């Protein structure tokens, strides 16, 4: 087995990977930027190495520094996690050329799937259904206009090299096209260095269904069922579940088969995810393939009993997949909620601060993947994901119930998070009956501004006023320790009269 794995990531996923190494008796090496000097992942790894400044280009995205480090510390494998360099074919090629094993697919597979337009062509050739649209980047606004008239509005403009919702715009009629096209190109250029944009027919109110697959270097392919990730805000997933509440067994068989065909088409090995859009008739269309471990992999691990990271590492080493397709059964229903450092009351903009109090949820059926600890500072340099809460219940109703309890138990002080928002989602009819589409949040949540929380409060106004006043009373008697938080001036004024 590998002697030492270099984990080129941070936050909760770095910790997930380091734990897997420790479990397998492999030495783990972490990396950190100047913004992560003592972040949790550096403390639990066997060793940790400084890369450079807080800007990703100086640290987590710096290919030459990472390759140099891997050689120097004699790491025989590199795990990229998700984001950062995980789908960067140049990086993978550099790793391969340095004689180090990349825990992931070959650079060739990644290249085949890296361009959305090339991937669409590949799917067409392999009988995987795709959304009608262009397979090559659009050169000009004129060309865009012609294409849109061809496939009919509404359409979706997408960055060719994109992901995570950046460079993605919906256009409902020809009047909106110009602004949408320019905005998408600008964002694409800034986020990915290429302003290439392509056009797709917009499937209205679709569900986001994705299939987890895994493949080894011996030509074995397995699927681990589907996940539903339609609870999205600006194309960022917020809550995921497995299995999907909307799939029947027939569609499950079709969609998992399509996913395996997609993986075979690019001669894939490693864990991977094939994303589909599904319309209300359960017709599904290939969206893209993520050639890496996915943020939401815990829900699949929980319902399948398979450790995907362990499989990834074994596969990269040349071992075969440890299970047969027939052995897998769906063990229950799993839900994941992403706890972000962002403020639902303030356009979901990222928040920062020092975590002065952190109470994790616990109990049967609760899994916590977290990147933070008491005392951690959360800055604005990186993805605002703090913690993933996942639950496993015998059925969906129990899973929702467990998630509600876990979210209530999770207390964080010192930074604003989206926990209240997550709890709000779990109470919505469209979520409870499973009918939600990817437009759910935009339709249901956004119009509530600014009174969105009130419907959710379960104390009467008098009860709440009483609670506030008792805390005031307490403060009057015992001066607060204001060292770790700010903005207390007014409160103090009130009490010092």
């Amino acid at each position, binding site marked *: 087995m590998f002697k030492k794995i270099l984990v080129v990531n941070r936050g909760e996923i770095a910790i997930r990977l380091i734990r897997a190494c420790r479990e397998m008796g492999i030495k783990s090496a972490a990396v950190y930027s100047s913004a992560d000097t003592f972040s949790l992942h550096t403390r639990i790894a066997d060793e940790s190495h400084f890369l450079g400044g807080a800007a990703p280009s100086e640290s987590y995205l710096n290919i030459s520094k990472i390759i140099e480090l891997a050689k120097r510390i004699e790491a025989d494998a590199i795990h990229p996690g998700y984001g950062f360099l995980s789908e960067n074919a140049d990086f993978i090629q550099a790793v391969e050329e340095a004689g180090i094993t990349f825990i992931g697919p070959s650079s060739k597979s990644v290249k085949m799937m890296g361009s959305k337009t090339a991937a669409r062509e590949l799917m067409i050739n392999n009988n995987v259904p795709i959304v009608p649209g262009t397979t090559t980047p659009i050169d000009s606004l004129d060309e865009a206009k012609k294409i849109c008239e061809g496939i009919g509005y509404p359409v979706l403009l997408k960055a060719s090299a994109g992901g995570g919702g950046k460079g993605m715009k919906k256009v409902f009629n020809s009047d909106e096209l110009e602004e949408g096209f320019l905005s998408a190109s600008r964002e694409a250029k800034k986020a990915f260095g290429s302003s290439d944009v392509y056009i797709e027919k917009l499937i209205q109110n679709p569900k986001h269904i994705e299939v987890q697959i895994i493949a080894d270097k011996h030509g074995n392919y397995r699927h681990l069922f589907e996940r539903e990730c339609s609870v999205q805000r600006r194309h960022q997933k917020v809550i995921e579940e497995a299995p999907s509440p909307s799939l029947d067994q027939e569609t499950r068989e079709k969609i998992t088969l399509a996913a395996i065909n997609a993986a075979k088409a690019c001669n894939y090995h490693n864990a991977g995810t094939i994303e589909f859009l599904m319309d209300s008739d359960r017709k599904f269309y290939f969206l893209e393939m993520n050639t890496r471990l996915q943020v939401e992999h815990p829900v699949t691990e929980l319902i399948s009993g398979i450790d995907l990271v362990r499989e990834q590492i074994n596969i990269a080493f040349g071992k075969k997949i440890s299970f047969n397709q027939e052995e897998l059964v769906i063990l229950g229903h799993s839900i994941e909620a992403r706890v972000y450092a962002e403020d639902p009351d303030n356009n979901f903009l990222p928040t920062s601060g020092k975590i002065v109090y952190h109470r994790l949820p616990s109990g049967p059926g609760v899994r916590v993947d977290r990147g933070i600890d008491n005392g951690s500072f959360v800055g604005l340099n990186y993805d605002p994901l703090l913690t993933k809460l996942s639950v496993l219940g015998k059925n969906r109703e129990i899973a929702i119930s467990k998630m509600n309890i876990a979210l209530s138990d999770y207390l964080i*002080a010192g930074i604003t998070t989206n926990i209240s928002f997550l709890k709000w989602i779990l109470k919505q009819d469209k979520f409870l009956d499973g009918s939600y589409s990817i437009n759910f949040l935009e339709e249901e949540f956004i119009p509530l501004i600014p009174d969105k929380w009130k419907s959710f409060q379960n104390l009467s106004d008098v009860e709440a006023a009483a609670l506030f006043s008792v805390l005031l009373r307490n403060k009057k008697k015992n001066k607060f320790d204001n060292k770790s938080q700010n*903005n207390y001036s007014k409160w103090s004024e009130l009490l010092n009269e």
Partner: protein
Amino acid sequence: MNNYFVTINDKEHHIRYESGNSVEINGKKITFELADQNGFHFSLRFGNETYDIIKVQESNGNVSLLIDGIYYEAHVQSDLEKRAAQLMKNSKKQIHHVEVRSPMPGMVLKILKTKGEEVKLGESVVILEAMKMENVIKSSSSGIIKEILVSENNPVEKGAILFKIE
């Protein structure tokens, strides 16, 4: 001063502090038990109900709490402050001003409204680039744009006033 006014969901409640573990709210006396777990996290009991309370924020008399994980906010004033505010309000002839502030540092990419234009609650007013994303800043109030304090392609600090709405 032992008299305070707590406004929650636009309803005002009169609080009078008593001695010991009791307060009077709207003329009704209630007793409580309180444990300060660590300065930010409190446990509070009224009768048989126990609440875990996390202090989220407080500034200018606006206090927000997570009570058993659910978000509440209130405006807290002493009776002195209340009278002062009343006077201010009268002198300003009850014109309601709202400032739309930048929620984070970034670059103003586009300003979607002009001075004097009408704007509705939730309508987009500015596109701010931050975190490599284009973030749409929405108006937190309806009214007329009285003043625009930023310009396109210029950076803004967190908390900077973008617009004033009347």
